C-alpha cells in the first residue's frame, strides 16, 4: 500500500518530465481517436442509414412473389416491429375509351413507414402525405392524366372496378432510379385489389412487406426470419435495396475502419516511443532505489502502479474530451446535414467506453510495461560508476508483447481479422521496404558528403549531424516516411472515394427525365430545350422488344436462371456514339457500315448489338452470340459485337441493349432524355407539359438532392478521420524527435560554449529535420503511389492516376511541419545558460 502511494506521489511530482507528458498526451490521443471516431462514425452511420432507409420506405423490405404466411407478420408484431405491405402488378387502365398498360401498386394504410409520399395538387404544388389512397380512390402519375385526357376527380377502371382519381402521384419513396420499367404508376388501396378481379392464379405479382423497428428488434426478427425464406423471397435493407447507397456505405465503413485503425496504430506507436523515453529516464532512479535495497520485483510493482495511474487519468481525460468533441462535431455536422438528429451517446457507447479504456491499458501494458520490465535489470553499481548504458537493451519478449498488444487493440477496434492481419503485415512490410530505402540512401550519400559544403555553414552542419548517426537516420527516416506514407494512403483513399462519388453525381446531374417523346415532337422539343438553356444527356430513341432466342435456342431454355429482364419487354435503343459514361469491356464499338441493308437484322445480315456487362453475365452471353428480338411481331437478328459497362445511377438514360441506327430505326419508337433543371427553372416544366401533353416528365430532383446529401455526409465523416490521422502522425513525429532531445540539448549547450550562436543551432536543427522530412516525404510518396497502384483495384475498385497535388505539397508541408516541431522542442535550449545544461552531465 505504501508502495502504491509512493508511486502515485512520485508520478505527480514528475509532471514536468517531458517524456511523461508525451506519454500522457499519446495515451489521451489514443483514447480520443477511439472515442471520437467510434462515436461520430456510429452517429453518422445511424443517421446515414436512417435517411437512406427513406428510399425503401422502411428499415427493411421483404419481397416475395406470393403472399407470406400471416404468422410471420404476427411474429413481427410480437417482436415489436411495425409493418406495412404493398402489392405490385401490371394491369390495363381504362378511361375515356383508351387503354394503357400501367404498373399498379396497392398499398395499405401503414405505407409508407419511412420516406415521403408526395402528391401534386392541380396548381402544381406538391404536398407530403403520410398515407396512400383507400376505398374507390386512386392516384396516378401526371402523364396518365394527359394520356386519358382526364383531370382530378375523373373516373378510371382497373378490372371490374371503377375508381375516382383523387390526386396526382408525384413521388413514392421507394421508387427506383432505374428506368427499366416505364409503365406509368397507379397507386390504389390494398383492400380494393380483390374487388378488381385482376389478380388471377399465375398473375405476376410482387408483394412487398416493409418493416421498421429498433436495430436490435430488427436483427432478432431477421435471425428468426431468414432461415424460413425460400429462393424467390428477398430480405433487403438499404444496402441490398439501393446499390449506389450500398456502395457509399460499404466503402465508408471500410474506410472508417481502416482510417480509425491507423489512427489507433499511430497513437500506439507514439505510446511505445514515449514510454521508452520515460523508462530510459528512470534508469538512475531505479539504480538509486536498488542501492537503497528495493528488489527488482518491487521496482516492477512500483512502475506498474505508476502506469495504472497514468492510464486512469488519461482514459478519464480522453473520454471526456472525446465525448465533448463528438458533441461539437455533431453540432457542426448537423448544421451541414439537417437530418442528423441522432444522440452522440447511445447503447453502443458502452462498447466505446470499454474500447477506449481498453486501448489505454492494452497499449500501456503492451508497450510501456515491457520497457519497465527491463529496468529490473539495472545494476545498482550505476550509482557508483556512470555506466555507458544509455539505451535499454532490445528484448524479444518486449517486442512480442507490443505486437500482440497492437493485434489485440486493432482487433478490438475493427473486429475484422483480415483487416488487422492485412494492416499489420502491410505496415511491417512497408517499414522493411522503407528501412531498406533509408539504408540505401545513407550508403549512397556516404558519411562525408557534408564536406562538399562550405565549412561552418548550416547545411554542412546539418548534413554531418544527420550522417554521422547511421542508426538514427535509419530509424528516423523509416518512421517519418512510414507515418507520412500512412497519411498519404489515407489521404489518397479519401480523395478517391469523394471524387468517385462526386463524379457519379456531379453538380448539375440530370434530375428530370422526359419520356415518351413522339418522333414528331422531337424537333420542336429540341428547340424549346435549347431556348431554355437546358442541356440534355442526349435524346435516345426507345423501341420495346423482347429477347426471344440466344443462338437459336429459346431464352427460357437457354437461360434457366430467373432473370427479370427476360420477363418483360426491354427498352432497345440505337446510337452511333458510345454514351460518355459507358465503357467497352469486350469487343468494339461499331464503325459506320457501307450498306445499311446488309445489317438490317433480317436474313440479309445481322445487326450489331452492344450488351450491358451484368446482363451479359447473367445470360451467359459472349461476343459473336446471335440474339433474336421480337419487336411488334417482327424478328430482329443481332450479333453481340461488344459488352459494355453502364453507370446505372448516373441519372442518364441507360440501356441494356444498344443497336446500330439502321437496324432499329424502321420500328416505331419514342424518345427519352434527361436534363438538369434547378428550382428557378421549374416553371419550364409546366410549359413543357402544356406544349407537349403526351410527353411525361419525371421529376427526380429531390431524389438526386437526397443522394447528394448522403455523399456530403460521407465526405464529412472522412474528414474527421483525416484530422485524427494527422494529429496522431504529429504525435509520433514529436515522440521520435523528443527521443533524441537529450543528446541534442547537450550538444547544443556544448556548441554554445564553443561560441555558436543560438540562431545557428536552431537553424541546424530545423534544417536537419527538415531535410529528413523532405527525403521521407519523397520516399513516402513513391511508396504510396506504388501501393495505391497495387491496391486501388483490389480494395476500392478505382482506376489509378498519380496524385500530383500531393507531390507538390507533401514534401513542402512535411519539411516545414517536422522542422517546426523540432524547432519547438529545441527552441528553449538557447534560452538556458549553457552552464546549467553542462552541469547536468
Amino acid at each position, binding site marked *: 500500500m505504501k508502495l502504491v502511494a509512493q508511486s502515485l506521489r512520485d508520478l505527480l511530482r514528475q509532471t514536468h518530465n517531458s517524456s511523461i507528458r508525451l506519454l500522457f498526451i499519446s495515451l489521451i490521443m489514443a483514447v480520443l481517436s477511439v472515442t471520437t471516431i467510434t462515436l461520430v462514425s456510429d452517429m453518422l452511420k445511424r443517421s446515414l442509414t436512417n435517411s437512406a432507409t427513406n428510399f425503401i420506405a422502411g428499415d427493411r423490405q421483404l419481397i416475395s412473389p406470393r403472399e407470406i404466411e400471416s404468422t410471420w407478420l404476427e411474429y413481427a408484431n410480437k417482436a415489436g416491429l411495425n409493418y406495412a405491405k404493398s402489392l405490385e402488378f401490371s394491369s390495363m387502365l381504362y378511361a375515356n375509351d383508351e387503354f394503357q398498360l400501367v404498373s399498379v401498386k396497392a398499398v395499405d394504410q401503414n405505407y409508407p413507414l419511412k420516406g415521403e409520399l408526395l402528391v401534386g395538387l392541380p396548381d402544381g404544388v406538391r404536398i407530403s402525405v403520410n398515407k396512400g389512397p383507400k376505398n374507390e380512390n386512386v392516384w396516378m402519375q401526371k402523364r396518365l392524366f394527359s394520356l386519358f385526357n382526364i383531370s382530378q376527380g375523373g373516373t378510371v377502371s382497373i378490372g371490374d372496378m371503377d375508381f375516382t382519381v383523387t390526386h396526382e402521384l408525384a413521388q413514392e419513396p421507394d421508387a427506383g432510379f432505374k428506368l427499366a420499367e416505364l409503365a406509368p404508376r397507379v397507386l390504389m388501396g390494398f383492400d380494393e385489389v380483390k374487388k378488381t378481379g385482376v389478380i388471377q392464379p399465375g398473375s405476376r405479382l410482387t408483394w412487398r412487406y416493409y418493416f421498421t423497428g429498433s436495430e436490435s428488434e430488427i436483427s432478432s426478427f431477421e435471425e428468426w426470419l431468414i432461415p424460413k425464406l425460400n429462393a424467390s423471397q428477398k430480405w433487403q435493407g438499404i444496402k441490398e435495396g439501393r446499390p449506389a447507397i450500398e456502395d457509399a456505405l460499404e466503402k465508408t465503413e471500410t474506410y472508417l475502419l481502416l482510417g480509425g485503425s491507423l489512427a489507433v496504430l499511430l497513437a500506439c506507436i507514439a505510446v511505445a516511443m514515449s514510454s521508452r523515453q520515460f523508462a530510459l529516464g528512470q534508469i538512475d532512479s531505479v539504480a538509486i532505489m536498488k542501492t537503497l535495497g528495493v528488489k527488482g520485483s518491487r521496482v516492477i510493482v512500483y512502475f506498474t502502479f505508476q502506469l495504472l495511474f497514468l492510464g486512469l487519468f488519461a482514459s478519464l481525460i480522453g473520454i471526456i474530451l472525446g465525448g465533448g468533441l463528438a458533441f461539437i462535431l455533431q453540432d457542426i455536422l448537423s448544421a451541414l446535414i439537417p437530418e442528423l438528429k441522432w444522440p452522440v451517446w447511445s447503447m453502443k457507447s458502452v462498447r466505446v467506453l470499454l474500447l477506449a479504456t481498453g486501448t489505454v491499458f492494452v497499449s500501456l501494458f503492451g508497450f510501456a510495461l515491457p520497457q519497465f520490465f527491463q529496468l529490473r535489470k539495472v545494476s545498482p553499481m550505476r550509482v557508483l560508476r556512470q555506466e555507458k548504458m544509455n539505451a535499454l537493451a532490445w528484448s524479444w519478449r518486449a517486442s512480442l508483447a507490443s505486437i500482440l498488444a497492437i493485434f489485440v487493440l486493432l482487433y478490438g477496434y475493427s473486429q475484422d481479422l483480415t483487416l488487422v492481419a492485412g494492416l499489420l503485415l502491410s505496415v511491417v512490410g512497408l517499414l522493411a521496404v522503407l528501412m531498406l530505402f533509408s539504408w540505401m540512401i545513407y550508403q549512397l550519400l556516404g558519411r562525408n558528403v557534408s564536406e562538399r559544403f562550405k*565549412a561552418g555553414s548550416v547545411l554542412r552542419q546539418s548534413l554531418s549531424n544527420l550522417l554521422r548517426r547511421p542508426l538514427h537516420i535509419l530509424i528516423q527516416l523509416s518512421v517519418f516516411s512510414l507515418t507520412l506514407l500512412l497519411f498519404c494512403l489515407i489521404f489518397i483513399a479519401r480523395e478517391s472515394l469523394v471524387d468517385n462519388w462526386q463524379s457519379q453525381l456531379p453538380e448539375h446531374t440530370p434530375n428530370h427525365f422526359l419520356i415518351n417523346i413522339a418522333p414528331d415532337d422531337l424537333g420542336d422539343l429540341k428547340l424549346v430545350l435549347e431556348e431554355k438553356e437546358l442541356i440534355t444527356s442526349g435524346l435516345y430513341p426507345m423501341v420495346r422488344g423482347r429477347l426471344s432466342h440466344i443462338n437459336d435456342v429459346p431464352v427460357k431454355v437457354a437461360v434457366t436462371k430467373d432473370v427479370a429482364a427476360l420477363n418483360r419487354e426491354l427498352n432497345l435503343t440505337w446510337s452511333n456514339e458510345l454514351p460518355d459514361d459507358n465503357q467497352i469491356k469486350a469487343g468494339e464499338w461499331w464503325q459506320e457500315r457501307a450498306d445499311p441493308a446488309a445489317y438490317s437484322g433480317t436474313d440479309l445480315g445481322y445487326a450489331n448489338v452492344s450488351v450491358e456487362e451484368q446482363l451479359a453475365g447473367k445470360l451467359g452471353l459472349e461476343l459473336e452470340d446471335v440474339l433474336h428480338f421480337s419487336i411488334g411481331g417482327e424478328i430482329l437478328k443481332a450479333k453481340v459485337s461488344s459488352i459494355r459497362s453502364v453507370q446505372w445511377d448516373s441519372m442518364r438514360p441507360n440501356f441494356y441493349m444498344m443497336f446500330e441506327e439502321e437496324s432499329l430505326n424502321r420500328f416505331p419508337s419514342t424518345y427519352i432524355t434527361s436534363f438538369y433543371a434547378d428550382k428557378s427553372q421549374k416553371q419550364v416544366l409546366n410549359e413543357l407539359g402544356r406544349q407537349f401533353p403526351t410527353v411525361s416528365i419525371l421529376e427526380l430532383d429531390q431524389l438526386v438532392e437526397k443522394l447528394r446529401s448522403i455523399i456530403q455526409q460521407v465526405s464529412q465523416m472522412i474528414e474527421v478521420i483525416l484530422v485524427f490521422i494527422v494529429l496522431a502522425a504529429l504525435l509520433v513525429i514529436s515522440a521520435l524527435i523528443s527521443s533524441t532531445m537529450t543528446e541534442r540539448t547537450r550538444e547544443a549547450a556544448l556548441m554554445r560554449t564553443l561560441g555558436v550562436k543560438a540562431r545557428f543551432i536552431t537553424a541546424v536543427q530545423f534544417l536537419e529535420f527538415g531535410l529528413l522530412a523532405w527525403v521521407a516525404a519523397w520516399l513516402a510518396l513513391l511508396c504510396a503511389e506504388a501501393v495505391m497502384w497495387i491496391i486501388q483495384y483490389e480494395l476500392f475498385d478505382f482506376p489509378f492516376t498519380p496524385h500530383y497535388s500531393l507531390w507538390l505539397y507533401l514534401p513542402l508541408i512535411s519539411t516545414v511541419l517536422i522542422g517546426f516541431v523540432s524547432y519547438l522542442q529545441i527552441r528553449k535550449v538557447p534560452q538556458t545558460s549553457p552552464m546549467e545544461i553542462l552541469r547536468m552531465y
Partner: protein
Amino acid sequence: MSQPVNQSSTEQTSYAIFADDIGKQVDVKSQKLEILRGISLKIKQGESLAIVGRSGSGKTTLLGLLAGLDTVSHGSISLMNNALEEMSEDERASVRASHVGFVFQSFQLLPSMTALENVMLPLELKGDAFAKKSAQEFLIRLGLDDRLGHYPSQLSGGEQQRVALARAFACKPDILFADEPTGNLDQETGQKIIDLMFELNEANSTTLIMVTHDELLADRCQRRVHIDAGRIVPEEHSVASNKVELVECKA
C-alpha cells in the same frame, strides 16, 4: 559601479579579463539566493589563475560568468575588451568563438562524433577550410594518432581529456577556461594532462583560468584566488610563490 572600470579603461586593455564588482543572484522558490557578490578580478594576458574553494563556494559559477556562459546580476566583465554584461547571448557567443576555449571535468565530448570530428567541430563552425588537417595535426601532437576514428566511448578517460584539450587549443584561444580538468582522472593520468595543458598554454601564450580542488594543481598557476561563500577571501595558507593581487572587495 562602472566608474572604476571607466577610470581605468586604458588599464583594462592590457588585461585579458577585467571583472569589476560582479555578483550573481538566482531565484529559488521566489527567494533570491546570492551565489557570488562583490568580486573584482584583473587577469593579464598570458597569465595563469587558479580559482579554489570548497564545494558550493561559487567557483564554477564564477568561471561561467568570466567566460560569458552566464550573465552577471550586477557588475561588469570585460573579456578581451568586450563588455560582456552589455552583450546579448549571441554577441557573447561570438566573443567566445573568437577568444575562448574550454576544458571540462566530464570532458564533454559529443558521443556521436569521433575524436577527429570532435576536434574539427569548433574549427568547422568557425568556417576553417582546413579544419580536418589542423585537427589531425593537433591530435597527432597529443599522441592520439591511432585514435582519430574512435568514438569517445572507445577512449579512456585520459584519452578523452586529451581530445578535449586538442579541441580547446585547436582554435588557438586567447583564454582557456578549465573546470576541474583532472577531476575525473587518476593522479598519474591527471598529471600528464596538466603537464600537457601547461605546455600548450605556454607554447600558445594562452591565458589560463582554472577551477580546481587540487592544491598542487593550483600551485602550478601563477596565482590563485580563493572563493568562500561567494566572495573572494584572503588565503588562509598563503603560498609564497603566489602573486595574488586581491582587489578590495566592496561591501
